[in-house]
């Protein structure tokens, strides 16, 4: 598939048509994460319009979207930007393009679930800080957390942890399968 095809395919999957967008900026105007984004939702749509898949896949926007859907809600043409962003993010991952911080968090998170079946926020934060090389992030809250016993010292895995692992493994295989079928 060439780049234009891929872009079209991603938009089709997300049920988004680039011509629907007339760049009014209402999405980026209301996006809570916009200030931290490079393209922002409007920029994503603009890039799609000019066929710049590359700039979409390499943007921070696809990693920073928090999925609050405020943009779609207010969009005069009902362009589902978050759905498109999600598809673009999967495509980026398929190509090995990742944002380091997000990757560390997400992988740590999933490892957490694989290990225990549930997520333990403070454990997650601790591991994240280590792997992301940000030892001091949120350190100020640590004393409170410890003193109020909000962090379980030794988390218990759920009984079905094996089941959860199997589900994740199967789901990841299915993802690959779907991708292959598509190509």
């Amino acid at each position, binding site marked *: 598939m060439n780049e234009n095809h891929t872009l079209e395919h991603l938009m089709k999957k997300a049920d988004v048509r680039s011509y629907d967008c007339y760049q009014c900026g209402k999405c980026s105007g209301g996006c809570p994460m916009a200030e*931290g984004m490079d393209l922002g939702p409007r920029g994503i749509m603009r890039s799609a319009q000019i066929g710049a898949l590359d700039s979409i896949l390499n943007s921070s926007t696809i990693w920073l979207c*928090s999925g609050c859907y405020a943009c779609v809600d207010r969009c005069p043409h009902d362009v589902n930007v978050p759905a498109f962003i999600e598809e673009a993010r999967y495509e980026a991952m398929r190509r090995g393009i990742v944002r380091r911080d997000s990757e560390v968090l*997400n*992988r740590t*998170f*999933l490892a957490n679930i694989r290990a225990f079946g549930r997520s333990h926020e403070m454990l997650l934060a601790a591991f994240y800080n280590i792997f992301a090389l940000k030892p001091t992030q949120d350190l*100020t809250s640590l004393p409170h957390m410890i003193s109020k016993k909000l962090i379980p010292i030794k988390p218990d895995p759920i*009984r079905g942890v094996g089941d959860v692992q199997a589900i994740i493994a199967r789901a990841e295989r299915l*993802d690959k399968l779907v991708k292959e079928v598509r190509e």
Partner: protein
Amino acid sequence: MLRYAYFPGCASESTAKSTTLANEFVFGAVGIDLVEIEDWCCCGATSAHTLSETVGLALPARALSRAERDHPDLDVVTGCASCYARLKLANYKVRTDKDAAWLVEKALGRPYTAKNEVLNFLDILSLDEVKASIETAILRKFKDLKVACYYGCLNIRPAEVTGAKDRENPMAMDEIAVLTGAVPVDWGFKTECCGAAHQNDAARQTRPLTARILENAMAAGADVILTACPMCQLNLEMRQTEYARKREEKKTGKKVFPLLDMVIKPEPQETIPVLSLTELLAIAMGAGGRRLSLDVHHVPVGGVIAQGLSGMNEKEVREAFI
């Protein structure tokens, strides 16, 4: 008696201790039976679906399919907006998207038909009969306690999945809070994303927006922010000192070093307590502070509760709540 299959969510076991206790208290008091889904697992929010669409649907579907198997007549309810969003989406996708339904079933290795609804606490507490029970269960009323109700974005949007009618200025929570005598304020960030999902991996980007929510609530004259989600709650209160110091820095121009604060312990800052809606209800229904473990809050809540429940003396307050 209303019965629901209950999905507590991971936060209930750690940071949301007080909220979890309050949930149990309130639902017990109004006579709603929450049957915990047996051996539930994490819904995957928000990393799983970031990485993989199928994993993101399969994890919540695991809990939902167990609920469907064990309690075929019960709708599923959760008290966390993040969990709600994932569970509801899995439910919605299985109902509306044949491909997704197929993937979910294959990944789970067992059927999930999505015949039952997924609800959040607000849906249940807003029922007329439940509101009536809340009213009778309330023993003491707050006075002049101004509350800013924060709904959280994921309880409300996307509209096509949640079916929420009013997405900019919802009133369901305000209408429940009123029952306790609290006075909801009109403010501008009821459904704005608080950035909880990215607090770890994009701290620099998310903290300003969390701070902005707090500032707007304070500007609207609120004494306390009410939340409908433990993730929102933790996120809104956890770094308040840091935000307050940042504001101070902006005002005075004097550089602030958060880590240093751990040692020098600066003067108390301009902060706003954050309570979950069920905590507010539980207190009005007579629950004590110790019973609810209200001391786990990062921003102390005792003062504002005492002020709201005027007539209590300071000693009673101390004993009851802190």
